[in-house]
C-alpha cells in the first residue's frame, strides 16, 4: 500500500544543521521530487537578508527538509508508542511539515505587501490543485490532500498534529532559528534542540514539555528574541526590502499607466492586474525576479532604473529613527513637501518602515491574545504555563517591541549641485 510503502534503502540528505535528513517513506521521496517542491530551491529563506549577512543564501527547500526532519524525529523517536499519540497521523504530520512553506513566492514579504497576496492561499492551491504534489498526495487517499492543507492552515481537528507545525515551540521555528543562525553566521540563534525533542510529550490538545527541559526552552525563547532583533529586523535588510517594495510599486504603476518597457514585465502582468493564477505564480521565482531587476537598471524611467541599480548594487537607503507621534508626523509632512521641492519623489524615496515582535505570550481566558502557550509537564502530571515557572520567560512575556525607521537616499541629499538649500534643510530636519 502506497501510504506505508518504504524505499528499498533509506535516502539521506546531508544537512549542515541536522547532519542528515532521513527519508524512508516513498510518499515523502515522491513529494520532494515534484516540480512545485523543487521550486523552493529558487526561493531564499530570508529574502533580502543576504545583502546584510552574505551567508544567508539558503533556500526554503533547505528549511522545508529541516522541518520535515525535526517532525520525523519527534514522531518516530519520541512520540511512537506513547498513549496520546495516534500512529495513523504520522504520515500526515510528515507531509504537512515538508509542505508547510510550499506557497511562498519570491521575496514573499515584499510581494505580499505590494500585491496583497497570501502565501498560505497558494500553499493550499498547490496542495489541492492540478499539481504534481496533489497527484502524490491523492495516491495516499482521496481526502489526504485536504487533510494536509488543513494541518498547515491550523484548521485540522487534531490540535496535537497542528501544534507540531505551528505553535510557540514548533518544528518550523526550531529549524529556522538554528538554520538562519548557521547561515548568517551569528552566534545568537543556538539552543539545545536535541534536549527539547527528548522532553516533548504528546497530549490531546498539543505538545507539552517535561519540567526538566525548562531551561532548554528558556534558551530557545531567548534565541528567538535575539534573532528577531539582530537578524530578521536588521535595519539594512529592511532598507533592501523597502527598495524592493518600491521597485514593485513603480513597475506596477508604469505598466498600468501604459509605459513602454524595454524589458516588458511578462511574468508580472497578471500580478499587476490582480488576477494571478497558480500556473503563473509557480513560474515566478527569485531568479526570474532578479533577471527583471537586472534589466530594468537600463530602463528609461529614472525612478525604476535608479531603484533597481540600488538593489542590484547594494546602494541602499539610509535611515533615522522615527516615532509616529503627532510632532514627528508634522515633521514627516514637512519632509514630504521638501522632497517634492527638491525633485525627489517622496512616494519612492521617503519611507517609514515598521517592525514588531512579541517573543512569547500566553493565553488569557476570554480574550483574544490567541497564542497557544507552552505548557510544562510537572512531575505530578499537572500542566503549568511556562511563564509561571520561568522567571526569565515571565520577564519578556507579553512584551512587544516595535521599531519604526524612516528611510531615504542619503546620496541624493549629499548631491548639492542642485536645490542646495532645500537639501540642506531636509538634512537638518532628518538629523535634528
Amino acid at each position: 500500500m502506497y501510504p506505508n510503502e518504504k524505499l528499498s534503502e533509506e535516502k539521506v540528505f546531508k544537512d549542515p544543521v541536522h547532519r542528515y535528513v532521513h527519508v524512508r517513506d516513498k510518499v515523502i521521496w515522491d513529494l520532494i521530487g515534484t516540480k512545485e517542491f523543487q521550486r523552493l530551491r529558487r526561493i531564499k529563506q530570508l529574502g533580502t537578508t543576504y545583502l546584510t549577512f552574505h551567508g544567508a543564501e539558503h533556500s526554503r527547500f533547505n528549511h522545508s527538509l529541516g522541518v520535515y526532519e525535526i517532525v520525523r524525529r519527534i514522531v518516530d523517536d519520541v512520540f511512537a508508542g506513547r498513549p496520546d499519540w495516534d500512529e495513523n497521523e504520522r504520515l500526515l504530520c510528515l507531509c504537512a511539515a515538508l509542505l508547510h512553506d510550499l506557497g511562498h513566492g519570491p521575496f514573499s514579504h515584499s510581494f505580499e505587501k505590494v500585491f496583497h497576496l497570501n502565501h498560505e492561499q497558494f500553499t493550499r492551491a498547490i496542495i489541492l490543485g492540478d499539481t504534481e504534489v496533489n497527484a502524490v498526495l491523492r495516491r495516499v487517499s482521496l481526502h489526504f490532500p485536504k487533510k494536509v492543507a488543513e494541518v498547515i492552515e491550523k484548521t485540522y481537528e487534531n490540535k496535537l498534529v497542528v501544534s507540531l507545525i505551528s505553535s510557540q515551540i514548533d518544528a518550523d521555528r526550531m529549524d529556522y532559528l538554528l538554520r538562519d543562525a548557521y547561515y548568517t553566521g551569528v552566534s545568537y540563534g543556538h539552543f539545545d534542540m536535541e534536549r527539547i525533542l527528548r522532553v516533548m510529550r504528546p497530549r490531546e490538545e498539543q505538545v507539552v514539555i517535561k519540567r526538566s527541559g525548562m531551561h532548554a526552552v528558556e534558551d530557545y525563547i531567548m534565541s528567538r528574541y535575539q534573532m528577531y532583533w539582530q537578524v530578521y529586523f536588521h535595519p539594512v535588510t529592511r532598507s533592501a526590502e523597502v527598495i524592493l517594495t518600491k521597485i514593485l510599486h513603480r513597475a506596477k504603476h508604469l505598466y498600468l499607466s501604459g509605459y513602454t518597457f524595454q524589458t516588458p514585465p511578462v511574468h508580472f502582468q497578471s500580478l499587476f492586474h490582480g488576477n494571478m493564477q497558480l500556473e503563473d505564480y509557480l513560474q515566478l521565482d527569485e531568479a526570474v525576479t532578479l533577471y527583471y531587476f537586472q534589466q530594468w537598471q537600463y530602463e528609461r524611467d529614472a525612478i525604476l532604473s535608479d531603484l533597481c541599480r540600488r538593489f542590484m548594487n547594494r546602494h541602499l537607503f539610509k535611515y533615522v529613527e522615527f516615532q509616529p507621534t503627532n510632532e514627528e508626523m508634522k515633521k514627516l509632512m514637512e519632509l514630504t513637501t521638501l522632497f517634492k521641492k527638491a525633485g525627489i519623489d517622496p512616494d519612492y524615496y521617503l519611507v517609514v518602515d515598521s517592525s514588531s515582535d512579541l517573543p512569547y505570550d500566553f493565553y488569557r481566558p476570554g480574550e483574544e491574545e490567541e497564542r497557544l502557550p507552552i505548557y510544562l509537564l510537572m512531575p505530578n502530571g499537572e500542566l503549568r504555563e511556562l511563564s509561571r515557572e520561568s522567571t526569565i520567560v515571565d520577564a519578556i512575556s507579553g512584551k512587544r517591541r516595535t521599531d519604526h525607521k524612516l528611510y531615504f537616499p542619503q546620496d541624493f541629499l549629499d548631491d548639492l549641485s542642485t536645490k542646495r538649500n532645500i537639501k540642506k534643510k531636509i538634512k537638518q530636519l532628518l538629523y535634528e
Partner: protein
Amino acid sequence: MLFEHAKMLKVLAAVGEIVGRKKLQKMIYIAKKMKFPFYEKFDFHFYGPYSEELTWRIEELCNVGFLQEMKEKKGGYYQYRYTLTEAGEQFLTHYQLDMPDLDVCLRSLNEQSARFLELVSTILYFEELSKDEVKEKVFTLKRKKRYTEEEIEEAYRYIEQLREQAYIKS
C-alpha cells in the same frame, strides 16, 4: 505612510468605541471579507480568524496615545474597551480617509455580539466549502461554543445582508 494605522483610527472614529479585542478582530476580518481595503493577514486560531499584525497595530496605537485601551474586569476575566483619543483624532487629520460605506458596515458589526461575530467570521473563513462542510467545521472546531443550526442560519442571513449593502453602495 502609516496609512494602515490611520485606517484603524478611522474605524474607531466611525463606531465610537469597541468593547473586546475579539470583537475588534472579527469586525476587521469581516469588513475585509466584504472587500473593504484592510490588508492585515489573518490565520485561523482559537476564536476563528485572527491577525497578529492587527494586534500589534492596535497595541502600537495605544502606546503612542492615539487610542485609549481601558481594561475592565468582567466576571472571571478582563475585557478591553477601545476609544479614539484627541491625539488620535489630530493624527487622523493628516489623512484623507472618507469611506461612508465602511462606516455603515462597521456600525452594523459593532451592534452584534462577539460570539455572533466569531461565528460569522468562521463561516466566512471557510466560505469556499459547501454549507454542509462549513457546518461540520463549525461543529468540530467550535465544539465548546455549542452553536446551533439556527445561529448558523442567522449568520448566513447576516452575511447576505452585509454583502447586499456593500454591493449596493460600491
